[in-house]
C-alpha cells in the first residue's frame, strides 16, 4: 500500500501555444481534505478535466492508489476511484433522484432489461445517507433546492467510485459559489462525512471557506502550483497574495473610499408586503450610500430587490424614488425613474449573448449613441472603447460577441450598461461578484465606490457576508421575509459576520 490516494507528478497540458498546466505536482492522502485555490484562468478547471480523463496530459503521470494510471474518461476515472462533482449541475431536472443517480449506469439497473425500482431506491437512499442527506429518492429533481441537488450530485459521484479498489477521491469544483451561508454549513458537514470514506479535493476561490474546510491547500497561478500550505495557522491575506501575485493590502472592499452618504433619501421603501415572500419591509438608501441586505435563501431579500425594479409584485406598501411614488410591476417604469438592476443570473437576465459588447452597452440608454433617428456606429464604438478602458474589459474589442467573454468581463458590461448615462439614481446589485475572480471583483468594487461618489444610491445583495459588510454603509438582515436587524457599518466600525449570523438564523 502507498501513503497517497492520488498523486500527480509533473503534469503538463498545452493547448497549442498556450500552456494551461505546467509541471503540476500534488498529492492527496487517504481521508484528507485538500484545497485548490486560484483565480479564474489559473488552471483549476484544466486540472480537474485531466483528473476526470476529459483531457490527457502531454507529459507527467497520474498515480492512483500507488499505481500509474491513464484515465480514459469520467467513467473510467470513477472506476479508478476519482469522482468529480462539477460546478455546473449535471442533473436532469424532470426526473427523480433515483433516476438521476442511475443515469449512465443503465447496465446495472435490473434484470432482463427491467428496472428494479425498490432495489435502486434503497441503494440511492444508502448513498444519500452516506452524505447525511435525507432527500427522498422519489422526489423530482427540480423540486429540490440547489443545496439538496448538490448533495444528490455528491451521492452520484459516490456511486461512480463505489466499485473502485482503493480509497476514493471526491473532487468538488466550486461547490460553494452559489450556496448561501447556512447551506455552506451543511456542505461542510458533508465534506466531513466524505472524509470518513475517502479523500476530498475542494476547489474554490473563496479563501475563507478553503481555510475552514481543508487540511492542506495548493495555490495555483498561471497554470502552476505556486505554493502549498497547511491551513493550520496560515493567514487569508497570505493566500490571497499567493493567488493573485500581489498584495491584498487589507483593503479588499476599498473601505478607505467609503465616503459619507449625502442627506437626500433617494430610495424609500415603506411597509412593502407580498404574502409568502416578504412582509412590512422598510428601507431607506441615501445618495452615495451603499445598503446591503443579507439573509438566507428563503429570507425574501431577492424578492424585495426585484420588487423595487418592478419584477415582483406587492400587495401593500410603497416605493418612493426621490420622494415620488414608483408605480409597481414594470422594469421599464423603474428604469425611467432612474432605477437600475444588475441581476444575479447574468447570462439569462443580464447580457444578450449574440450581440456585441457595444450593442449591449447601449441597450438601455441608447440615446448615448443616437444620431437623429439612427444609432451611430461611430458613437457606439467610442462609447464602448471608453468603457472598455475604464473597466479593463477584455477582449478590448467593441464588436466582440459578449457571449464569448469570461463571466467577469460580462459582468463588467452588465454593470456599465447602467452607467453610460448619468440618469441612474438607484442601483440594485444582485450578487454582483458571483463567480468572479478577485481581480474582476476589485474592478466591480472600485466601480461601486465610483457610482456612490456621483451620488447613486446602491442596494447590494452580496455574495458573502464579508462582501456586504465591507461594501456597505449599513447592513439590513432579513429572515423569513422580514427585516430583523439593521447594522450601521461605517468605515471604522464594521460589524462582524458573527453579529449578522445571529440575526439571520
Amino acid at each position: 500500500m502507498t501513503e497517497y490516494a492520488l498523486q500527480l507528478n509533473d503534469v503538463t497540458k498545452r493547448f497549442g501555444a498556450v500552456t494551461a498546466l505546467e509541471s503540476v505536482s500534488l498529492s492527496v492522502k487517504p481521508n484528507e481534505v485538500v484545497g485548490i485555490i486560484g483565480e479564474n484562468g489559473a488552471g483549476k478547471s484544466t486540472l480537474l478535466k485531466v483528473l476526470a480523463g476529459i483531457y490527457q496530459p502531454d507529459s507527467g503521470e497520474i498515480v492512483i492508489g500507488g499505481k500509474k494510471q491513464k484515465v480514459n474518461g469520467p467513467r473510467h476515472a470513477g472506476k479508478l476511484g476519482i469522482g468529480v462533482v462539477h460546478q455546473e449541475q449535471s442533473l436532469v431536472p424532470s426526473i427523480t433522484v433515483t433516476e438521476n443517480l442511475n443515469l449512465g449506469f443503465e447496465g446495472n439497473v435490473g434484470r432482463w432489461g427491467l428496472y428494479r425500482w425498490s432495489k435502486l431506491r434503497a441503494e440511492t437512499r444508502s448513498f444519500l445517507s452516506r452524505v447525511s442527506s435525507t432527500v427522498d429518492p422519489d422526489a423530482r429533481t427540480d423540486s429540490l433546492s440547489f443545496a439538496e441537488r448538490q448533495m444528490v450530485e455528491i451521492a452520484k459521484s459516490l456511486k461512480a467510485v463505489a466499485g473502485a479498489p482503493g480509497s476514493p477521491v471526491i473532487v468538488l469544483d466550486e461547490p460553494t459559489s452559489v450556496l448561501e451561508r447556512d447551506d455552506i454549513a451543511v456542505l461542510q458537514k458533508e465534506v466531513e462525512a466524505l472524509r470518513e470514506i475517502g479523500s476530498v479535493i475542494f476547489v474554490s476561490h473563496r479563501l475563507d471557506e478553503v481555510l475552514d474546510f481543508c487540511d492542506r491547500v495548493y495555490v495555483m497561478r498561471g497554470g502552476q502550483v505556486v505554493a502549498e500550505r497547511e491551513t493550520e495557522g496560515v493567514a487569508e491575506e497570505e493566500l490571497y497574495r499567493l493567488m493573485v501575485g500581489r498584495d491584498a493590502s487589507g483593503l479588499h472592499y476599498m473601505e478607505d473610499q467609503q465616503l459619507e452618504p449625502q442627506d437626500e433619501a433617494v430610495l424609500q421603501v415603506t411597509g412593502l408586503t407580498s404574502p409568502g415572500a416578504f412582509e412590512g419591509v422598510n428601507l431607506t438608501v441615501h445618495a452615495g450610500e451603499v445598503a446591503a441586505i443579507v439573509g438566507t435563501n428563503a429570507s425574501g431579500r431577492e424578492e424585495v430587490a426585484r420588487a423595487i425594479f418592478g419584477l415582483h409584485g406587492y400587495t401593500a406598501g410603497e416605493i418612493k424614488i426621490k420622494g415620488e411614488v414608483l408605480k409597481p410591476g414594470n422594469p421599464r417604469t423603474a428604469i425611467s425613474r432612474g432605477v437600475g438592476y444588475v441581476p444575479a443570473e447574468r447570462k439569462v437576465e443580464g447580457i444578450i449573448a449574440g450581440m456585441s459588447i457595444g450593442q449591449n452597452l447601449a441597450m438601455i440608454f441608447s440615446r448615448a449613441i443616437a444620431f437623429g433617428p439612427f444609432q451611430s456606429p461611430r458613437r457606439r464604438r467610442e462609447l464602448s472603447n471608453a468603457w472598455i478602458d475604464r473597466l479593463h474589459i477584455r477582449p478590448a474589442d467593441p464588436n466582440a460577441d459578449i457571449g464569448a467573454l469570461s463571466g467577469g468581463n460580462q459582468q463588467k458590461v452588465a454593470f456599465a450598461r447602467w452607467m453610460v448615462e448619468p440618469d441612474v439614481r438607484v442601483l440594485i446589485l444582485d450578487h454582483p461578484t458571483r463567480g468572479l475572480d478577485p481581480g474582476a471583483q476589485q474592478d466591480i468594487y472600485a466601480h461601486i465606490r465610483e457610482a456612490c461618489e456621483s451620488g447613486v444610491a446602491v442596494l447590494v445583495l452580496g455574495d458573502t457576508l464579508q462582501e456586504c459588510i465591507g461594501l456597505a454603509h449599513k447592513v439590513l438582515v432579513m429572515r423569513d421575509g422580514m427585516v430583523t436587524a439593521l447594522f450601521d457599518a461605517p468605515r471604522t466600525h464594521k460589524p462582524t459576520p458573527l453579529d449578522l449570523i445571529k440575526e439571520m438564523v
Partner: protein
Amino acid sequence: MTRVIERTSAGQSAASAWKKKLSLRPVVPFGMLVILVAITAIIQPSFFTAASVNVLIEGSALIAILALGQMFVLLVGGIDLSSAAVGTFTAVLFAKVVEPLGPSSVVVVLVAATVIGGVNGWLVAYLQIPSFIVTLGSLAFWQAAALILSDATTLSVFGAGYDLVGWITGQKIGPFTPSVWLTVVLALVSWLMLRYTKLGQSLIAVGLNERAALLAGLQTRWMKILAFALSGLFSGFAGLTVVSGSFSAGPGQIDALLLPAIAAAIIGGCSLTGGIANPLNVLIGSLVLVVLRMVPTAIGLDARSQQIIYGVTVIAAVVATIDRSKIPILK
C-alpha cells in the same frame, strides 16, 4: 507570471477575432446560389440567357416580399403561417374595395393587412399562445375570409382600379419591373432599420434573449406585435403585387407560397430560434429557392420527380446555411 497570462489570453482573443473575420457564414447563401447556378449552367448551358435570368429574378420578387415579412417574425423567435393567406386576403379585399374607394383603397388594404398581422402578434405576446398555433388558426381564418369575400370566384381587376397597382409589374425601370425594385427597397430599408435603429436593435435583442431585453427596459411585447404587424404589411405588398401581375384576385391565389417563403428566409440565414436575420441574405435565399423551383424543369427532369429534387435540395441548402452552433437543441 501575470504577464504570461495576459499574453496568452490576448493571443486567444486575437485568434478568435481572426476566426470571426474568416467566418464564411454570412456569404453562405450567396455561395449556395453561385453553386446552383454553376451546376445548372454546366448541365444546360443554354438555360442562362439574359432573358431567363430576368424571368428568374422577376419571379423571385413575390417570394422575397413574403420571406422578408416572415424574417421579422422569425427574428423575434416566432413563425407566421398565415402570411401567404393574409396576402391572398389582401388581394381579394383590394379587388372588392377598389371600385367604391378609389386610390385610397391601396392604403386601406395595406393598413388592414398590418392590423391583421398585429392581431396575430397581440395574441402571441399578450395571451402567450405559441405563434405556430395562433398563425395556424389565422391561416384558416383568412383563407376562409378570402373565400367568403370573393364568393369563391376569381375577381377581375381592370380599368382605373387596376392602374393603381398595375405599375408594380408594368413598365420596366432599367432591366426590371418596379416589383423587383420594390423588393430591393423593402430589403434595404429593413436592413437599415435592423442595423442602425433602436427599434431594429430591440427586435434583435428580443429574439436573442427576451428576458434580458425586458430587464433592459425594452417593450418586448410591443416588439413582437411590431414583428407580426410588419409581416402583415409585407403580405399586403405581396397581395397587391399579385393583383398587378394577374389582373385578378381569387381565393387561394398565393397560399402555396407560404412554405417556399419560409424556406427562402431560412436559406437566407434566419435562425428559427430568433435573433439572427439579414434581409439582404433573405433576398439571396429567395433567388436560391426560385432557381431550385425552375431548374429541374430547365434541365428536363421528369415532372414526377421534380418535387423530390426540390425537397432534397431545400434540406441540403438549409444544412449548408444555418449556424447550428447557436442552436443547442433542435426540435
